[in-house]
């Protein structure tokens, strides 16, 4: 399987074999990601980190991934101080930057931006989120977390929170459908997953059921994937509080859960997971954030041709 010079744009381009290949490569990167082993796999290579929107986790974990493999990072810095503020198109920015570096990581507020960038770039582009569109490296690290902390085969997973706008859950569902997962969707009616996406996922092999509360799903599932509900989605603050309180995980909620249940969250969280849950063996979200590093190391190694 050859990933060299391939752009990483959308999970739609990935087969199960490709995903498995990346996750296996990520496992080998873990000791280096933890700092237990040193590597100069990407020595002499430079990664451009172009973030047109703020991000902490994704940007830092890409930078860490590159540095851990002995490579260097070139950061765009503030968009306000760059030529973009002067009205330069993304296509021009990419054609300039690709002359400086060996790979580009891009986050951009417009959907499809990474696709455009990969059309104009001579070097591989990795999509770190394009508007409400795709964020494939988040999905891959979610899958990696499930593989490491639970299991991808015969998985029963519940996704809770904003399933309408949440790009991470859409993308994760598409990927999980390749593994025939049983997916339970938990959301208030205002934030239900769009029917078109549900039908698409079912057509790809997943089984889907929709429920209103976490309590209805918690007993059966291996993984509970929480997401943040954004206040802006609700015109009435009282309605937001009501919904947010209903979709909240506490130590009490977990009494009915399987012993092996793992709770994931792409972070940042607000109050959907009570702090007391952090100390239970179910909490998995900080590990999940760490797993972003070996997964991104694997991707960088693969697209730069340093590993196969």
């Amino acid at each position, binding site marked *: 399987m050859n990933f060299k010079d391939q752009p990483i744009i*959308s999970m*739609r381009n990935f087969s199960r074999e490709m995903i498995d290949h990346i996750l296996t490569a990520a496992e080998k990167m873990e000791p280096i990601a933890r700092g237990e082993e040193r590597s100069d796999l990407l020595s002499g290579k430079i990664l451009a980190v172009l973030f047109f929107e703020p991000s902490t986790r994704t940007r830092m974990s890409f930078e860490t991934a590159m540095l851990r493999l002995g490579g260097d990072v070139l950061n765009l810095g503030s968009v306000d101080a760059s030529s973009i503020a002067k009205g330069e*198109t*993304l*296509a021009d920015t990419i054609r300039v930057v690709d002359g400086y570096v060996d790979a580009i990581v891009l986050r*951009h*507020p*417009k*959907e*499809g*931006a990474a*696709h*455009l960038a990969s*059309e104009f770039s001579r070097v591989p582009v990795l999509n770190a989120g*394009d*508007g*409400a*569109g*795709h964020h494939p490296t988040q999905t891959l690290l979610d899958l990696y977390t499930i593989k490491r902390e639970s299991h991808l085969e015969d998985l029963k997973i519940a996704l809770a929170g904003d399933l309408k706008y949440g790009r991470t859950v859409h993308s994760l569902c598409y990927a999980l459908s390749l593994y025939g997962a049983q997916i339970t969707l938990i959301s208030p009616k205002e934030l239900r997953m769009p029917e*078109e996406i549900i039908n698409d996922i079912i057509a790809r092999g997943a089984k889907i059921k929709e429920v209103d509360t976490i309590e209805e799903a918690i007993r059966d599932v291996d993984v509970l994937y929480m997401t943040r509900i954004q206040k802006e989605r609700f015109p009435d603050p009282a309605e937001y509080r009501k919904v947010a309180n209903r979709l909240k995980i506490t130590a009490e909620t977990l009494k009915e859960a399987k012993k092996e249940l793992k709770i994931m969250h792409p972070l940042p969280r607000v109050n959907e997971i009570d702090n007391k849950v952090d100390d239970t063996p179910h909490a998995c979200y900080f590990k999940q954030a760490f797993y972003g590093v070996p997964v991104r190391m694997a991707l960088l190694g693969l697209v730069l041709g340093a590993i196969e």
Partner: protein
Amino acid sequence: MTDIETELRVRRIENGTVIDHITAGKALNVLKILGLPDSSQGVVSVLINSNGKYGRKDVVKVENRELNVEEVDKIALISPNATINIIRDFNIVNKYKVHIPSFVEGVVGCINPNCISNSNEPITSKFTVDTENIFLKLRCYYCGRVISENIAEHLL
């Protein structure tokens, strides 16, 4: 209607292309897709809501220009039953049905206002065409948003 009456409304052309069996009411959209009349030196005649063997239809006649398959196939997005007749010396020398293309570029605009193809980037909109269902679906190559209804309203 007799042949003479038809003749009086839209005359036969000596050389060029006749696009027949266009879905009734879509002829002006067909002109838009083909960039007519700007892309033609000859006369372009349009017949809207004409009587046909299978009900109402539109017809477009483009004089002195033979349209190629690639350009006319774009018409299939809004009028999948259209037929193309190439005319030389008043005779039909070639006749074929339009085929729904699997990919179209620069014909339709993306409905997602936040799509990168709706910004000032140096690109044209592109769509993959899904024909699995009886209803056409266009999926934006850039953002993935699907257009499944009223495609004609989104013509560029």
